[in-house]
Each structure stands twice: as C-alpha cells, then as structure tokens.
C-alpha cells in the first residue's frame, strides 16, 4: 500500500467483518452471496436450488447437483466414467492438475453424461462442470459429449446439455479445437434424423464451447445473468478501446440481441424443458 492510499476513503481491501468475527462461524455453515453480499445459511441456499433468495443470483451447481435438481429422482445412469485424460503435448503438470480435479469433483472429466427420465420422458443429458478445469473441453470432454449425442441419436430421444465452460482446453492444443468439429458433426447427424437438441447455457459459457454445440440447440436457453460469449471481455475492450456496457455478454443481453430463445430461472427449468420435451415426443410408429 502506498502512502497515498492511507488517505483514500474507499480502501480496496476494507473488510466488513473483523478477522476475529470470521472465526466465530465455522466454515461452510453460512454463505455470502457474491452478487448482493447477503449472508444466509448454506442449508437454506441449498434448499433454494442455490439461488440467492435476496437477489436471485444463480450460484454455480456441480454437475451432480444439476442432475439431482433436473431429472426425475433416481433415474440417472451415467456413461463413460472410465475415459481418462492423457497428455498429448506433454505439458508439465497437466495430468496432475486433472487428477487433482478428479479427486475434488468425483468426476473423470469436466462433463457428466448419461440417460435419465425428465417428467417421465427418456432423455440423454450432458452436464458440464465448471469446477473441473473451468469446464474446458479437451479430448475426453469432446468424446463423452459426442458419445452421448450418438446414444441419443441411436435411442431417438432428445439430447439436452447444460454448458459451463471457459472454452477449448489449451493444454491439448489443436486436438481440443477439433472437438468443436467432432461434437458438431454428431449434432448434425442427430438433427438430420429429426431428433431434438436443447442447449441450456449456464455461467460461464465462452470460447470454443460457445462457438460450437452450446449455440446449436433447436432451442437455446440460458440461466439468468449467465456470462455467454465468444471472446473474453478484456480482449474485446483492448481491441475496440471502449468501455462495454455492464450487461454485455449476459444471458439477458443475448436475449435482447436475438441470440436466445428464452432466459429461464432455475426454479422453472425442469418444468420448461420437461414441457418442451413432451411437445417433441415422437409418436410410436
């Protein structure tokens, strides 16, 4: 801190709670909303689908929480949990980082895929997990999503994805870029056979994921306030040298610019997607 900062009124690091006060509450019992600073019991936040009761901020869900929240209870069966990430470019420490995220999340990679029932209709779902390497897409993520799409095509059921990703996984180089093409060719085939694909973009969905399957739904939905975009905000600000509006690249911004079918709050997601799926059920031939 420089001398000048001492006289500033709004010190950047001013704390609202004394360090002693922080220790009075065991970790994890309460959660502070990063959006409105509302402090609530973590238990209450969980009960409210991890949506802040004060400002409706949608906290990130793990993929397991999402499955539990979204599908009919106990119907989920996962695919391809045995696929393992390797290190094609021999980046130092890459496999170790993946392994540590495996332990942290209980997943084999940044997406969980499988079948389940949604309000009584069979669907194939994929849920990306931003707690795993920022949800970035390397070979295993691309392969799992592609296999899930192919399974949905084979079964003739809707494919539903919840996206959450920082984009392509740089440590896998151009192979990660090609996962955009791989998933897209699979979606083309899925669609060509008259099957439904619903993409639900959650916070954050950017880069290569945004520029491939996330944007390719027959119906594209998003959670409120989710950050969705191709290029990063800082990159754009540097390129165009102008300040961007506050709501730039939010779900609401995309909706206003015609890029989304609807912004759906988490509390309505199951019902909304359930209805959409019901309306697309193919008549038994």
């Amino acid at each position: 801190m420089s001398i000048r900062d001492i006289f500033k009124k709004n010190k950047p690091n001013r704390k609202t709670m004394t360090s002693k006060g922080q220790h009075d509450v065991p970790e994890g019992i309460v959660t502070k909303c990063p959006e409105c600073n509302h402090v609530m019991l973590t238990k209450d936040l969980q009960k409210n689908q991890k949506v802040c009761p004060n400002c409706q901020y949608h906290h990130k869900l793990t993929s397991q929480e999402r499955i539990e929240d979204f599908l009919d209870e106990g119907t989920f069966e996962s695919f391809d949990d045995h696929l393992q990430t390797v290190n094609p470019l021999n980046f130092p420490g890459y496999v170790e980082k993946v392994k540590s995220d495996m332990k942290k999340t209980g997943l084999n990679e940044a997406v969980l895929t499988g079948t389940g029932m949604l309000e009584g209709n069979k669907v194939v779902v994929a849920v990306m997990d931003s707690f795993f390497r920022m949800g970035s897409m390397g070979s295993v993520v691309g392969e799992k999503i592609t296999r899930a799409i192919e399974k949905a095509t084979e079964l003739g059921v809707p494919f539903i994805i919840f996206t959450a990703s920082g984009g392509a996984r740089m440590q896998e180089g151009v192979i990660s870029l090609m996962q955009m093409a791989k998933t897209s060719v699979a979606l083309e085939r899925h669609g060509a056979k008259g099957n439904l694909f619903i993409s639900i973009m959650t916070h954050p969905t950017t880069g290569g994921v945004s520029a491939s399957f996330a944007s390719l739904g027959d119906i594209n939905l998003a959670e409120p306030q989710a950050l969705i975009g191709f290029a990063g905000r800082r990159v754009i600000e540097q390129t165009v040298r102008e300040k961007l509006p506050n709501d730039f690249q939010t779900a609401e911004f995309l909706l206003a610019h015609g890029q989304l079918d609807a912004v759906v709050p988490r509390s309505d997601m199951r019902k909304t997607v359930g209805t959409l799926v019901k309306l697309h059920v193919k008549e038994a031939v």
Partner: protein
Amino acid sequence: MVKTLPFEEPLVQLKTKITELKEYTSDAEVDLTKEITQLEERFTNLEKDIYHNLKPWDRVQIARHPERPTTLDYVKVLFDDFIELHGDRNFGDDEAIVGGVASFEETPITIIGHQRGKDTKENIRRNFGMPHPEGYRKALRLMKQAEKFKRPIICFIDTKGAYPGKAAEERGQSEAIARNLLEMAGLKVPIISVVIGEGGSGGALALGVANHVHMLENSTYSVISPEGAASILWKDATLAQKAAEAMRITAPNLKEEEIIEEIVPEVLGGAHKDIDTQASYLKEVLSKSLSELKTLDEEQLIDQRYNKFRKIGVFSEE
C-alpha cells in the same frame, strides 16, 4: 524489397558480402572469381540449411509474412472465370471473407476464403482478415448455393481468428461459427479446405469442416496464437517462441496427428518468394484431392467427413 525475417539474417549478410565483392572486382581489376564462386556455393548451402530446418517459430513468421499470398492471389492464378459474390442477405458484406464461383480444370466450383490485406489501407478494409458473423453467414450462404448446384467447394483458411469485437458479439459470433461447423458436416458436395497462412482457432475452423484438409508447408493451425498460449500458460507473452513449439501447430505436426491429409510443399524460403510456382504446387494437390472426392456419392461424402472428425481425440480407455 521483400521483408526479411530474423532467421534469414545470415543469408542477407552473406548476400551483401557477395555483392560487395562483385562490385570490388569490377572496379579494382583483381580477379576474385574463385572466392565469389566459393561464397555463392556457401550461400546455396546455407540457404538449404536454413530453409530445410525451419523451427516452428520460423514457420509462424513465414505464415505471417506481409507479402504471403492471400486467397485472391491464388484465385487469380488457379481458377478461371472467377466471379465474386457478396453479402449474407441479412446484415452486410464482410470483406474479411471473399467468395464466389469459378472453374477449376473445367469443373465449376465455389471458392470461399479468409482475405487479409497486404498494406494498412487494405487491411483496414479487410479487418485484417478477421471476420464478423456476417462473413461466416455469407460463407454458409455460398456453400448452400454450391450444394444446390452440386458444385465442389474449396475453402482457403487464412485468419488470426474471428474478430473479438462488440458488434461481433451482438450479432452472434459464436452462433455463426457453430452453425458453419454443423452445416458443413451435412453438405452433399465435396469440400476441400487448405490452410494457406494462419489458421487461428474457431474463426479458422468455421471454414474447415471439410472432406480433405490440407496445409501449406509453412502455415499454422492452432487453438490459440503462440502469444496467447504463452500469456495464459506462463503469464508471459514473450515466450511465444517456446509456445509455438509446445503447441504443435505446424503442418508436419498436424499431419502426424492425422488431422490434415496433405502438406502442400512451399517454394524455398516460403510461398511469397514465387507465387506462380507456389500456385502450381497447390494446384497439384487440389486436383488430386478433387478427383478422389468426385468418386464418392453424397452419402459417402457425408460419412467420410463424419468419420474424419469423429476419430480426432487422444485419451485412454481403461
């Protein structure tokens, strides 16, 4: 004069020395022919030595050479009857992508390619070859048109990436790229894509879901620029040289990974040294590629494209 690249310095120095010696002999009546011949021999050897042992970073610099032939340069030499077609019928005409119809060895084809400029003025007009969504939508419109008239499609990839701007986001940069990936997968005509310069990320891939993908020997194809990779992976953009090697972005690298079909050889020192010869190398590869794809029917074309991209990925299945 053509811009010289850092790794070409020794060549330039030797050339200067030879020129000096030549001038000296003509003035001073001393016979240095032997020395000059020796030096010229050394020059030829050095030239071979340098150009046959290019490091990834050297190739990046050749790929970015301001004089490097662009899409329209090749179009002029390779195709007859080219007529440029403009616009996405929706928003505007993005000059960072050009497209049109032409004939190639008597076959009507559709051509689409990223278009850089060679000087500042043209680069501003072309937005440095970095397309907006309307560019990709124009490309898709022309591809659908090609499908209707059963014309093969040839794409030239040459971009640092899709433009990261406010307007591009508002008009759906992501969706425009994604849509091309999906639609290209289903096209019933042969598609050949050639990376002629830089193949930068999604903005390049949006013209790259082809039956055959080829790369010029000194072109690059990558998920992120070496500078970008260095700044993200090591928080230091000056390590771009190291990143260029680590990321495996050159034509020989991608051939090894079986992501591309053919490496189009380049004239010694890079395509910019002799456009006509370079175009003839390119023509040979395109011609072979096209006659191979012409033997496939619509379904086979779609299946071949599907399988090509379906198999890309490195993982273990225990």
